[in-house]
């Protein structure tokens, strides 16, 4: 039974009631249901795989079964002879024109970047790497013909373990680079060695961020249609604009000859923030064959070939005083790049450099990250990208510190966090947190969670030596999102800026088209952007159409990732709306024969100050501008406006998440009993969308804690290629979430908004693991590696019991069947 306060339920029920704001001036903040959902969830829409232009050819890729091997020979003759087959190519056949896939983030001057051909030519370096492709009249013929391709491989040693990979004498992933280290990146502020030397309390921990598979609901899919010298490439991508530029760079097809369309896209979580070999190859094949070419990945293909996320080994040292005040933190990471550097692979772990300090004050900090090549699928952005890893590290350490000092984990945090009156605050990692109120979010969360009551129950269960122990996990997180100020990206040697673009077109009938460079792949932009435009222009929500995801329609943009859409793209839209109103004001003043300064604009209507009767609606002004019969001199006949917004700072959402976990000490099974998330994402455009983002984020973060792991065997074979082996939880496996918000507006943008897309994922993983460890700490357990499977929990208990059969505090669990029988197991 979940322990949810009745008031919380009542509030939640009230929030759940459908709302359609009748007052356009109040659109921002209205919990509208998403207008795009009906078509998305019924599938009556343009998913890439739904598109089938006449004459479409289908591509299938043959992929390496080896983690590492030299390609001795490729024989495609038999495959060419199969019925329905139009063409077969090996990597060598396309070696000249396919070039290499881009990495846009050279994090150090001496970073080693291997050539990454879309199809392997001489050597394969991970299972699932494409080595040949078949183009056929239908998908069946293409896949059948793959079985007729004969490839002779000479196996080379797999490089699976990162710690082994960086040792001298280890086989190399890329022999020509002479090392498995891509780069070493260092950040230091203050004398961390002195802090570690002098502090009375020093904790050292090693945590592993397991490798994850992003698992978007829609697999990747690409369709490329040639039209003379022009190409339209439709892809299930998060980044149509970046993809267009990169395709031009890789293929040398001029940028203006390529149109990229991201139609409705079914989730990405970073996995579609990428320039994939299959995208490049579909473009090249369409050019060669002069016909539309399509490829859709299967789930098991995607598990091997869509980039993975996380995968770090963290060595953390925390120095503190006896009262719990943090003196310094030293972070030493090994980050698995996989076999190649993809679009932002090397930069992902470095986003964590700015986040390992969390919400806490400290005197000294150092961060070192070594990027390591292995013969595994490349890693890259995955929901949170670097920040979940860092947040996990610091939030686990805070619980460890509390245990070491026998303090309540909330109290340890209070003693270290930035107090609300201290904002803006320059952190030890070099960022300026503009705003926040950790006290308010924490107080709210504690109340909703019924913290004291659960602590009492925990004590009781310990006392009773209950077979099911209760643990409480805390995560008081912040994150940096709204990527990103261009000058900051420049200082980090990122290959592009972080601005975003928006256009507003006011049609003659007064309807409004909003064009955004930040296209949605599930986030609900069509609703939220319409709310912003309706609010700012005072037009009905239904009168706004949001256009996105097509470089011909939305020519400028930096796309969707890093919780940037609202905090960057939304502000561009806000700016464009203001420009529309400014333009309209000139026309309205002329129509009303008044001075511009005498006009006020409210709820979509200009009126002369003090004379409400005399006025003109935006629609009337739009029509007058369209007719252009009577415009003032020098005023163009259009209200249309563009704005490009480059943020001054990141946005820093924060929150307090509390998790109660019941751990069955006999089986090791973990059951989440309750979960409270109080997030502060600043001002909110649509609370319903925010709550949805939090729910999905929690599911994904909890999944890392309990369920998901991409597993490779010693030979470098991915063993989790299907969803039977790679466990993604469903609603049935998750507790009822209690969500609430505090609202501390961001001071860095006029809407006061912060990003919310990644917050839940970032916060929840340490909350869950902290809860599990808290349930078992009195039994001698101080860590369980992720995912915390029942067997791993059971083994942690057993090892603790073997070390100390009678812990001084607490008790061995389950005298009848638990550790008793565990200890006696064979």
């Amino acid at each position, binding site marked *: 039974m979940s322990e949810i306060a009745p008031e919380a339920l009542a509030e939640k029920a009230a929030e759940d009631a459908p709302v359609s704001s009748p007052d356009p001036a109040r659109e921002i903040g209205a919990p509208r249901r998403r207008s795009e959902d009906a078509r998305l969830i019924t599938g009556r829409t343009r998913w890439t795989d739904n598109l089938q232009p006449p004459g479409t050819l289908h591509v299938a890729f043959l992929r390496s079964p080896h983690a590492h091997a030299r390609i001795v020979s490729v024989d495609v003759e038999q495959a060419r002879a199969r019925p329905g087959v139009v063409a077969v190519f090996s990597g060598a056949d396309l070696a000249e024109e396919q070039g290499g896939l881009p990495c846009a983030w050279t994090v150090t001057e001496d970073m080693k970047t291997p050539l990454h051909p879309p199809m392997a030519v001489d050597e394969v370096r991970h299972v699932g790497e494409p080595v040949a492709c078949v183009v056929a009249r239908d998908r069946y013929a293409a896949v059948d013909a793959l079985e007729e391709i004969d490839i002779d491989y000479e196996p080379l040693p797999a490089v699976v373990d990162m710690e082994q990979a960086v040792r001298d004498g280890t086989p190399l992933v890329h022999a020509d680079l002479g090392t498995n280290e891509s780069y070493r990146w260092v950040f230091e502020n203050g004398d961390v060695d002195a802090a570690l030397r002098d502090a009375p309390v020093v904790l050292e921990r090693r945590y592993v961020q397991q490798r994850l598979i992003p698992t978007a609901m829609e697999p990747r899919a690409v369709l490329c249609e040639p039209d003379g010298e022009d190409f339209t490439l439709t892809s299930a991508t998060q980044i149509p604009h970046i993809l267009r530029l990169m395709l031009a760079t890789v293929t040398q097809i001029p940028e203006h000859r390529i149109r990229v369309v991201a139609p409705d896209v079914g989730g990405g979580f970073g996995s579609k923030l990428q320039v994939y070999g299959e995208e490049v190859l579909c473009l090249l094949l369409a050019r060669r064959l002069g016909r539309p070419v399509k490829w859709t990945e299967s789930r098991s293909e995607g598990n091997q070939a869509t980039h993975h996320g996380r995968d770090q080994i963290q060595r953390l040292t925390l120095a503190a005083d006896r009262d719990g005040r943090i003196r310094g933190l030293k972070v030493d990471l090994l980050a698995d790049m996989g076999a190649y550097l993809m679009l932002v692979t090397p930069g992902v772990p470095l986003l964590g450099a700015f986040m390992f300090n969390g919400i806490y004050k400290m005197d000294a900090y150092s961060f070192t990250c070594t990027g390591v090549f292995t013969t595994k699928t490349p890693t890259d952005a995955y929901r949170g990208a670097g920040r979940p890893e860092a947040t996990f590290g610091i939030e686990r350490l805070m619980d460890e510190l509390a245990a070491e000092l026998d303090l309540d984990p909330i109290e340890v945090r209070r003693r270290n966090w930035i107090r609300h009156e201290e904002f803006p605050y320059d952190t030890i990692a070099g960022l300026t947190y503009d705003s926040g109120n950790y006290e308010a979010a924490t107080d709210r969360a504690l109340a909703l969670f019924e913290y004291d009551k659960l602590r009492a129950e925990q004590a009781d269960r310990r006392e009773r030596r209950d077979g099911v122990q209760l643990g409480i996990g805390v995560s008081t997180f912040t994150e940096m999102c709204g990527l990103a100020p261009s000058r900051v990206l420049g200082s980090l040697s990122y290959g592009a800026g972080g601005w975003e673009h928006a256009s507003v077109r006011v049609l003659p009938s007064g309807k409004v088209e909003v064009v955004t460079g930040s296209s949605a792949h599930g986030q609900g932009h069509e609703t939220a952007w319409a709310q912003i435009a309706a609010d700012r222009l005072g037009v009905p929500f239904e009168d706004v159409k949001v256009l996105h995801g097509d470089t011909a329609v939305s020519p400028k943009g930096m796309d969707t990732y890093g919780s940037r859409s609202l905090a960057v793209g939304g502000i561009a839209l806000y700016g464009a709306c203001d420009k529309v109103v400014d333009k309209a004001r000139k026309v309205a003043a002329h129509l009303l024969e008044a001075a511009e300064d005498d006009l006020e604009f409210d709820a979509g209507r200009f009126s002369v100050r003090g004379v409400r009767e005399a006025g003109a609606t935006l629609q009337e002004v739009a029509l007058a501008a369209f007719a252009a019969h009577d415009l003032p001199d020098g005023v163009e006949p259009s209200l249309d406006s563009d704005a490009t917004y480059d943020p001054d700072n990141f946005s820093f959402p924060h929150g307090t998440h509390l998790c109660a976990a019941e751990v069955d000490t006999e089986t090791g099974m973990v059951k989440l009993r309750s979960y409270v998330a109080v997030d502060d994402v600043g001002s909110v455009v649509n609370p319903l969308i925010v709550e949805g983002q939090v729910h999905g984020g929690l599911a994904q973060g909890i999944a890392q804690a*309990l369920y998901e792991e991409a597993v490779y065997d010693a030979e470098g074979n991915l063993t989790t290629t299907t969803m*039977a082996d790679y466990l*993604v939880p*469903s609603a*049935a496996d998750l507790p009822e979430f209690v969500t609430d918000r505090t609202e501390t507006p961001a001071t860095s943008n006029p809407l006061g908004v912060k990003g919310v897309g990644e917050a839940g994922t970032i916060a929840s993983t340490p909350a869950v693991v902290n809860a599990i460890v808290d349930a078992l700490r009195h039994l001698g357990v101080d860590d369980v590696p992720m995912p915390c499977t029942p*067997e791993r929990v059971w083994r942690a208990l057993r090892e603790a019991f073997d070390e100390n059969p009678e812990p001084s505090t607490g008790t061995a669990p389950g005298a009848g*069947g638990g550790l008793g029988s565990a200890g006696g197991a064979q």
Partner: protein
Amino acid sequence: MIPASFEYVRALSVEEAVTALSAAGEDAKVLAGGQSLMPLLRLRLAYPDPLVDVGRIEELREIRDTGDALVIGALATHHQVLRDPLVRAHAPLIAQATATVADPAVRHRGTFGGSLAHADPAGDLPAVAVALDAVFLLRSVRGEREIPAADFFVDWMTSALEPDELLTGIRVPKLGPGWGVHYEKFHRTAQAWAIVGVACAVRRERGAIEDARVALTNMGPTPVRAHAVERFIEGRSVSGDAFRAASEHAAEGTSPPADLHGSSEYRAHLARVLTARALTAAAAV
């Protein structure tokens, strides 16, 4: 993934089905609800030739009362089975275990006979059939044959069905008064297979266990009857201590697999813990 091409035969009667199977060779496969077979085809782990689709043979959907037993048609869907009043009344262990199979979408398509004929030791229903001493009813052009559950499961995903035989139904002896049942399934997510499962039926009389049947899911290449547990507990008074002592024998004679979800050692441990729980739950009639 895309299956390789295959020959397809749709049978509209049992006669048509067994005739088609008789004409086919060793590689023929019977398609019922497709919830296990289709993934194997799509992953190209199975290359049937031909695929004999029996999904429209209405007569095999029936669940009948034959006096001291029920006969469940092989094509009864899981959804149908778990809601059927006869099953709930006379074979509640089947209803209980069926409710844990996968998710509602799978349960509406997957069939009782299909998941038994698939003979996956990680499936929930094979252990239940073994625990209940069910009898498998087979048909071929050569005639009819009956095989007890204990002999039906031969090896990992291998049953006693000959290539030309069709499973038409399963006869399940009714449990009379005094019986309590429980299926204890241990899995990581709602839709995941059991790491270990325990199917248990016990008959209590005057405070003692008179009769016990315990079978284990995913503790070897076939479902395993935990005879040592049964022998230990039969005749003993109902008590937690007795159940725990009996459950210590749960892993005897098993050869549990090791995979991503659990080592053999862990499975052996789970079998003991879960057997104690299953006995306790079943005995609390």
